[in-house]
């Protein structure tokens, strides 16, 4: 009884499979009409019973009746086998079905089990359907939810089916697993895990059924070093299945750029799937470190992978030029990943032949306003003597005498001399770009002149004397109070 059930399941598949393989056009042969003439299927379908024999009859065999006298002549050509990645064979299935049905080797096959609906009359045939394969192979009702081990039962790898057109490959439906969230990510439901999930084989047969190495290498720039991918055969036709490299979720974090170094892994292995060294060197200018060198270099044999365009981090927005100092101080190594020291020196050791850059146009005229209450410290980049005093000297605006001595350059304020103390304490750096110590000592020394006390708020005489009494000597001589 059990063997009967098996035979009933197998034979429909046997015949259906042959039809699927041989699908070349509509079946125009009217089987029921000829029901009284053919007691056995193998009369015409010799191949279903005998390995190597044609599955369909020649048209000459019809001419026994259809000779133009008894019956009209028919014009018919046997269908040509259609390209497919199925590896179905009548012979194998026939033997299994016979054994299951308890029949001997010489008994005829039970074609009706697959090609005839239950209760239908003789030669009320139909094509076998795929569900019948699945029910027999116990793979479950969903063709695309079968276990990886089951795919190879019926299918051959894509690369081995050379006759399959690109259009047919492009029309391959995607299994449900491909639509599961996380399929493109790393994890138990990720495609990488699934591809490696089969015991001793390097790659899951389920992948090889529809994909070839070229397809994987399109995104996986480390494909040449990945055994799972290398286990696939190369086949450029696989590229017709379109795929798009999607950045992992953590890459969308607004501050990912700043912290991505910590997530590269010891040897950059977490990045090696999608990134070549060029991804790193698009931004990183330092001599390549261990993690970068561990990545593959782009070139022939590798896909493009992730394409990185150098862009500013989130923090570099707005007037970052004026604000960058404290960030650079706090995390200088972050800066050095993308910026060469030369870039810093361009401003912090400015080239006298450079035409602006940091400062806006016409800054030469504007600079008195910017220098008095310094928005940023001029002396971070400009040496007060070499830059400011030298230029002021060339422009004739340096002092040649104490204030009020020869000419009054500060003619915008009446009695500037009497009120200059406030201006000096507010912007002493501006004063010393034109004035030297001896100008001030004419009045502000205790050893001569007018002996005006220059010390103001916050002056700690004892401390300064302790740190450097030479400064005191300049005004007080050896009689330092």
């Amino acid at each position, binding site marked *: 009884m059990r063997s009967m059930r098996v035979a009933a399941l197998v034979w429909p598949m046997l015949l259906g499979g042959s039809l699927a393989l041989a699908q070349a056009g509509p079946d125009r042969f009217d089987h029921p009409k000829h029901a009284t003439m053919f007691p056995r299927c193998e009369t015409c379908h010799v191949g279903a019973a005998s390995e190597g024999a044609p599955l369909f009859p020649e048209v000459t065999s019809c001419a026994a009746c259809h000779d133009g006298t008894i019956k009209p002549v028919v014009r018919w050509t046997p269908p040509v086998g259609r390209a497919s990645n199925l590896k179905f064979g009548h012979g194998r299935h026939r033997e299994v079905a016979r054994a299951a049905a308890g029949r001997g080797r010489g008994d005829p096959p039970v074609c009706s089990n697959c090609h005839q609906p239950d209760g239908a009359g003789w030669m009320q045939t139909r094509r076998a359907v795929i569900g019948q394969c699945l029910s027999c192979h116990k793979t479950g009702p969903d063709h695309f939810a079968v276990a990886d081990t089951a795919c190879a039962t019926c299918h051959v790898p894509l690369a081995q089916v050379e006759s399959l057109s690109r259009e047919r490959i492009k029309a391959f439906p995607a299994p449900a697993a491909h639509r599961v969230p996380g399929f493109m990510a790393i994890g138990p439901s990720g495609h990488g895990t699934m591809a490696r999930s089969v015991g001793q084989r390097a790659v899951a047969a389920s992948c090889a059924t529809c994909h070839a190495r070229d397809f994987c290498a399109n995104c996986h720039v*480390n494909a040449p*070093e*990945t055994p799972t991918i290398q286990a696939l055969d190369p086949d450029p036709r696989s590229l017709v299945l379109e795929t798009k490299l999607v950045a992992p979720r953590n890459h969308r*974090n*607004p*501050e990912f750029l700043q912290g991505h170094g*910590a997530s590269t892994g010891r040897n950059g292995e977490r990045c090696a799937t999608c990134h070549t060294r060029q991804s790193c060197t698009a931004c990183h200018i330092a001599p390549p470190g261990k993690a970068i*060198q561990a*990545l593959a270099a782009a070139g022939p044999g590798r896909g493009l992978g992730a394409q990185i365009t150098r862009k500013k981090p989130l*923090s570099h927005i*707005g007037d970052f030029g004026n604000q960058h*100092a*404290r960030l650079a*101080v*706090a995390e200088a190594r972050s800066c050095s990943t993308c910026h*060469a*020291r*030369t870039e810093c*020196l361009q401003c*912090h*050791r400015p*080239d*006298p*032949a*450079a*035409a602006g850059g940091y400062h806006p*146009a*016409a800054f030469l005229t*504007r600079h*008195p*306003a*910017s*220098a008095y*209450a310094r928005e940023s*410290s001029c*002396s*971070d*980049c400009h*040496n*007060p003597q*070499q830059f400011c*005093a030298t230029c002021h000297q*060339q*422009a*004739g605006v340096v002092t*040649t005498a104490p204030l009020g001595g020869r*000419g009054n350059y500060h*003619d*915008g*304020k009446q009695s500037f001399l009497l*009120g200059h103390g406030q*201006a000096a304490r*507010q912007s*002493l750096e501006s004063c010393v770009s034109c004035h*030297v110590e001896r100008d001030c000592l004419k009045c502000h020394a205790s050893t001569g002149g007018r002996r005006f006390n220059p010390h103001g*708020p916050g002056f700690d005489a004892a*401390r300064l004397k302790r740190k*450097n009494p*030479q400064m005191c000597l*300049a005004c007080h001589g050896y009689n330092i109070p």
Partner: protein
Amino acid sequence: MRRLLLGLGLTAMAAAPLGAQGYRLRLDTRYESVSFRGVDIDSVPAASVVNTSGAGPTTADGFAVDCSGGNYCYFFRPGARQHGQPLSTHADLTLWGLGVPGLTIRASGRAITDLTANSVWAGTEPHLLLMEGYAEYAVPRVLARAGRQIVTGRLGYQGFDGGLAAVKLGRTGLDVTAYGGWGLGRATALPVTSPALNPLDDFQPRDRQLVAGADLAFRHRWVDLRGEYRREVDPSVHYFVSERAAATADVHVAPRLRVSGGAEYDLAAGWWGSAEASINYIGQKFYLSAEGKRYRPFFDLWTIWGAFSPVPYRSVRGSGGFEPVTGLWIRGQAERYWFDNAEVSSPLVTRFEDRGWRGGLTAVATVDPQWTLEGGYRVEFGPGASSRSLDGGVTFRPSERLSLAAHGGSLDRPLEFRFSDAKVSWVSGSANVRVSDRLRLVSDAGWYGDKRRRPDAAGFDLNQVRVSTRVVMSFGSNADRLPPARRAP
């Protein structure tokens, strides 16, 4: 010297990219032609001045004079137009892969001259400068350098000839750095003893100062902290030139929110130096920043300026920007500042300004990937000087390798302490051509109309055309030229 510079430039231009690995050489040659004009002091006998009703004494040809000096009255004539043509070549070389993993050699130097006969341009002496030149050994937890180098930090860019060592303490996130050597002058690659740093024949130390310092940094995913200490000592007398400490913090409070700040303390003077604290939020289409700041200048103790008690200014500052439509960014900033009480009293003189404000508004529109328009308005009103400017520009990028730009603007600048209002208008154009990945050319030319307005004859014009050219060449190996990874068997 000029021949040497020209030779360097031509050699660099003719050199073909080399195929060797483990080095990177960058040559940056610049030339600029620019004019400037100052004043010349002059005098006339007091008896020859002309007293004009309501305008005070002037010379016969209309220059306002100062006659407080006795028998002669002094005034400033417009100075002669001075023309500078600085030409420089900056070479930056990095070598690695020298047989010792982690060993790098780095050198950065500059050759410069002024092509005009009288060499009026500032900073062109001496003609050869070594900015940095050191050997660096870096392995994951240790870094050591020896040679001329610059340490950067909140206490400024300090150059010195000496050694530096930095250690990363395991997984604690702590980095310790210590350094020491013979110091260089502030913001220059020259020692303080160099004649180029004493144009006004002021007091100058006899010996270079000794520099020593240490930094302690803590890095965490969300927090960066750094403490610094630095001292400079005059080796001839063993007195301090400076002694300062500073702290900096940067905290990522949330993914888009960060708080940062820092402060300096002058241990020699016994007062707090500059400090600031800011909070920044950066959204998808906008950003906001608020900052409180204090600025106080710092002077070396070999000068007397610290004894004059410079007072700090404090400020509050806000800035922000938003993108109302894709491609258009509008940014603005405003700062209000006021100086501490200078504690001076001059009964006969009205107090000068002690507070001011500055702000600006800019808009940048990226019309499409090729066209960018920008405009800005900036004002600054405060003690000493003020300014107000309006400018705009357009940039055209027909390809990734070519960028053309045109800019124009106008600036008004009154001064508080001198009658010298100025107005400048300018138009300029520039071209930036990336001939190849290793060669870039930049050139710009602009016309500047500079008018100084005074109520007497001392006003002058300085209209001029400025031209500059820059050639940047890179040679050597990059990471992408390392041997490709071996294909799996």
